């Protein structure tokens, strides 16, 4: 296999990596807010259930969660997953929504009480205070930890191959076993590096955009 052929084969695998990354990110960012609201809920039962759920998700390996989502519906309800990719995406979204929710919670709780009170004495509604006063400040504060998680997500996609989803490392492994070439496996690192490099630049640009004020 020529270098070009390997590159094309790996690019094909990386397409799956990218889709898994993008769908997880797009869904987990808003879902994380929902989980965050649950873990801050004034209703004790909602709060306790949400926090217990976060504990389970953060306390077990993502690889195990992928396996559970893929196999358990078939074992218990006799409804096996038709799409391996769908199972991976669902497991990833749930896992990342929980991690994001904790970052959101930290961000929201770091905003001084005085900001809410200033909004209140100016006659704003709770929704206005959240969206007009607090949210932008939260986004600025959580951007660095979110960048960390987002970059981790890119690399976590490699776990998808535990249920034979053809992401980039899986593609490389196919070459290893089919053509007796080992180097494509290491070559996948370049794909991750380049993609994360681009992401780092993009997230850095966002941080810079928000650095027009302090506090």
């Amino acid at each position, binding site marked *: 296999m020529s270098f070009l052929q390997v590159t094309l084969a790996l690019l094909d695998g990386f397409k799956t990596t990218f889709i898994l990354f993008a769908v997880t990110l797009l869904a987990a960012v808003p879902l994380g807010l929902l989980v965050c609201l649950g873990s801050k809920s004034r209703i004790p039962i909602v709060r306790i259930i949400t926090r217990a759920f976060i504990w389970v998700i953060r306390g077990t390996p993502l690889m195990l969660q992928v396996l559970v989502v893929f196999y358990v519906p078939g074992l218990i309800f006799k409804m096996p997953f038709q799409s391996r990719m769908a199972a991976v995406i669902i497991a990833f979204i749930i896992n990342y929504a929980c991690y994001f929710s904790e970052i959101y919670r930290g961000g929201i709780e770091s905003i001084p009480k005085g900001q809410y009170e200033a909004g*209140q*004495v*100016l006659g704003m509604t*709770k929704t*206005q205070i959240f969206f007009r*006063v607090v949210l932008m*400040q939260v986004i600025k504060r959580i951007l660095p930890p979110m960048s960390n998680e987002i970059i981790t997500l890119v690399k976590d996609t490699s776990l998808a191959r535990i249920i034979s989803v053809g992401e980039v490392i899986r593609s490389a492994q196919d070459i290893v076993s089919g053509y007796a070439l080992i180097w494509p496996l290491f070559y996948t690192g370049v794909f991750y590096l380049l993609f994360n490099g681009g992401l780092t630049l993009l997230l850095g640009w966002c941080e810079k955009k928000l650095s027009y*004020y*302090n506090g």
Partner: protein
Amino acid sequence: MSFLEVSNITKSFGDTEVLKGISFTMERGQVLAIIGSSGSGKTTLLRCLNFLETADGGTIRLGGDTLFDAQNDRRISDSELRARRLRFGLVFQSFNLFPQYSVLRNVTLAKELLLRDEGHLSRAERRRRLDEIDEQARALLKRVGLEAKYANYPCELSGGQQQRVAIARALALNPDILCFDEPTSALDPELTIEVLKVIRGLISSDRTMIVVTHEMNFASSVADHVIFMADGVIEEEGTPEQVFGSPRSPKTRAFLQRPDN
């Protein structure tokens, strides 16, 4: 009947009784200074007036309207609460400006959001009202001496300038009563002077103000009426001459003789 009638306000946090039945009245255009040591309940009283805390007991009447009655007031709607809050303005000790907005936007934001409550406006009407809000904000900022800082962000201003923005922001909503919660306690002496000068400049026959302060000179020179609070009660009140000149209560005397006053 007085413009503001506060009667028998009580407030506890857990087992700590912070306000033990506060009653006072004031007339329109008056300046009331509330003094007292830390922990005497001054700030809590202001927060109850602004509905940042809900008093446990008592009533608040303003301009003939009952704004708060602990007896039958447990559940009021959010919009009703907002309407009541707007009758009072509050300038905080720590300014609490919105850091992500320019100075001008800090002053206009709340008014623009209130415009939405008025239901649907034609585009031209909306434009006209927004221009009005903008113009008013610029006039207020000019009045507090910040006409050169419209486009700056709070982090670019000194503490004194930030507090002056906060004053303009509170004035923009034209509250019936403007409250100040130790407005200069977070400031250096020289910045204190500029802020006090601005507050002094606000006094007029239709501006009613309540100032919680540690600045005794300021209180005695601007206030029409002074309340000295100690341990959650009004220990002494009267004109500045009475309270500062010939205090009757030993607690007041002890407080006024402290070297830092």
